[in-house]
């Protein structure tokens, strides 16, 4: 993660030729192997940056003309009629659905994932640890269509009574107001997404928790910490950056998850009234684009969808940046 090892003051001290020693390529001996590997690594690094930039440029170039023609407010409108003489489209509904479903997924999966990871690394008997870890890694690799199928056929009937129960008891609260939709509600999508990303959170958190130095754990135990107190003083702080990274990866997958969501969502009819309810239907960015991929008939219409894709792109970018800031802020304390 962000742990830097093998750093010493000598790394910063300029040599006689006033060059800093051991900085990137200057540590190279100039031999063919060094040059080849250094070159390959540099090219790969640049390539990634170029690719991301190109994708961003592509999205912007394609989206701008459509946005210029848009007669509705792109951010606050709930209309989606991108074709025709007077195109009008806004992303409010997709933004709401995407963000709330992903938030639900995170709220459910991160605590549970961290708890499972702690169980596997700190509590589980040693004969169980390896097989269970392998199983979790395997789950993380299950294709999302499988989760979609499972959600539709096996999980939806189970979730229905739960939803009715909550609507019954807490329906007075706007977030839980009944809407008459019972299939692919935002809440249901969120729960399926949570189950889907849970193995990701678990697998990565388990990896970092497992690497907590014995010295730190023993330090806590020798102070008279109980198992849980030891976890709180040594394991969790050590694993924190890793857990944040894991959550970001999971969130990235939840935000952009397409096939399972497309499978499950209840699309809303045009002109339906706005509702804050989590038991409302609604499309996410990804499912909207996927559902309408066959309609990309003219550049302006396509541009509208690409504009929506651009928002999703920026959204993931912002979320990841925030996570980086959170990790960097305490970097001095993580070495």
């Amino acid at each position, binding site marked *: 993660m962000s742990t830097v090892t093998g750093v010493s003051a000598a790394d910063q001290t300029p040599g006689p030729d006033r060059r800093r020693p051991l900085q990137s390529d200057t540590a190279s001996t100039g031999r063919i192997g060094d040059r080849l590997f250094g070159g390959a690594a540099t090219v790969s690094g640049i390539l990634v940056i170029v690719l991301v930039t190109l994708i961003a440029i592509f999205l912007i170039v394609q989206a701008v003309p459509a946005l210029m023609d848009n007669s509705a407010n792109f951010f606050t409108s709930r209309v989606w009629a991108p074709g025709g003489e007077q195109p009008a489209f806004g992303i409010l509904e997709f933004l709401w659905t995407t963000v709330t479903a992903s938030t639900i997924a995170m709220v459910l999966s991160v605590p549970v994932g961290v708890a499972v990871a702690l169980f596997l690394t700190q509590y589980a008997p040693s004969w169980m640890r390896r097989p269970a870890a392998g199983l979790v890694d395997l789950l993380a690799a299950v294709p999302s269509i499988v989760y979609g199928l499972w959600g539709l056929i096996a999980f939806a009937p189970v979730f229905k009574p739960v939803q009715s129960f909550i609507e019954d008891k807490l329906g007075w609260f706007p977030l839980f107001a009944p809407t008459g939709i019972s299939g692919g509600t935002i809440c249901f999508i969120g729960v399926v997404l949570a189950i889907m990303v849970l193995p990701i959170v678990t697998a990565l958190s388990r990896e970092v928790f497992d690497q907590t130095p014995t010295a730190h754990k023993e330090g*806590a*135990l020798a*102070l008279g910490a109980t198992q849980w107190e030891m976890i709180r*003083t040594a394991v969790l*702080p050590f694993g924190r950056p890793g857990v944040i990274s894991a959550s970001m990866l999971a969130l990235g997958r939840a935000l952009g998850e397409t096939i399972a969501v497309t499978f499950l969502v209840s699309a809303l009819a045009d002109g339906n009234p706005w509702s804050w309810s989590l038991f409302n239907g609604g499309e996410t960015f990804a499912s909207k684009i996927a559902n309408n991929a066959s309609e990309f008939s003219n550049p302006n219409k396509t541009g509208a969808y690409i504009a929506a894709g651009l928002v999703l792109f920026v959204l993931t970018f912002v979320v990841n940046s925030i996570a980086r800031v959170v990790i960097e802020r305490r970097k*001095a304390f*993580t070495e």
Partner: protein
Amino acid sequence: MAKRIDVTDLNVYYGSFKAVEGVSMTVEPRSVTAFIGPSGCGKSTFLRTLNRMHEVIPGGRVEGKVMLDDQDLYASSMDPVTVRRTVGMVFQRPNPFPTMSIYDNVAAGLRLNGVKNKKTLDGIVEQSLKGANLWTEVKDRLSKPGAGLSGGQQQRLCIARAIAVQPQVLLMDEPCSALDPISTLAIEDLVNELKNDFTIVIVTHNMQQAARVSDRTAFFNLKATGEPGRLVEIDDTTRIFNNPTEQATEDYISGRFG
């Protein structure tokens, strides 16, 4: 505050492997007892049984009796957590909590004990850092990470952390082996001061160190390769180094082996 340790006929096992056999000794309160002996002779293993830290290693268990004054450390009603709050430990490599500041490192044990009052914490942190001869060096940067200190300062921070919870006994497992001579000297001076308040047991590979800091010295050795370690003899340090009873001790301290 300091208590006497009485060990009777102690065997230590890791799984089915017998690591240490038949140790009996008494450690006087407010004294420094040094454990010396060749690598792998079980002195660190035995040290860890004095605060039940050996139980952290899978399969670790003991037979025999360890009494702290009139408390049986291995009584079935005795919680290892309680034992470790009474018998503190400092490790071979300095291990301050990397995510915590200097202040929080010292306060860690107190917070585990439920001390929340800021004034109380401030007082004990200052007193513990002074007790570890570190206060003047860090008093202006208490909120900086503990891992940013030098090795010797980190080790003194760990000692401050250990004494902050007011243990009866302080166990030190080769506390200077990762430190330079100057830092080592600082720790040795500190041990000399700490023995006014604590019972101290120190494992060391450095015989001069044992001679410098300890009142009593215990020599551990293996019977033979593959056999469990055992206590050869324990006596006043001056006697061990000048006129030991056992030939094996004589051989070891005069450098004939080990």
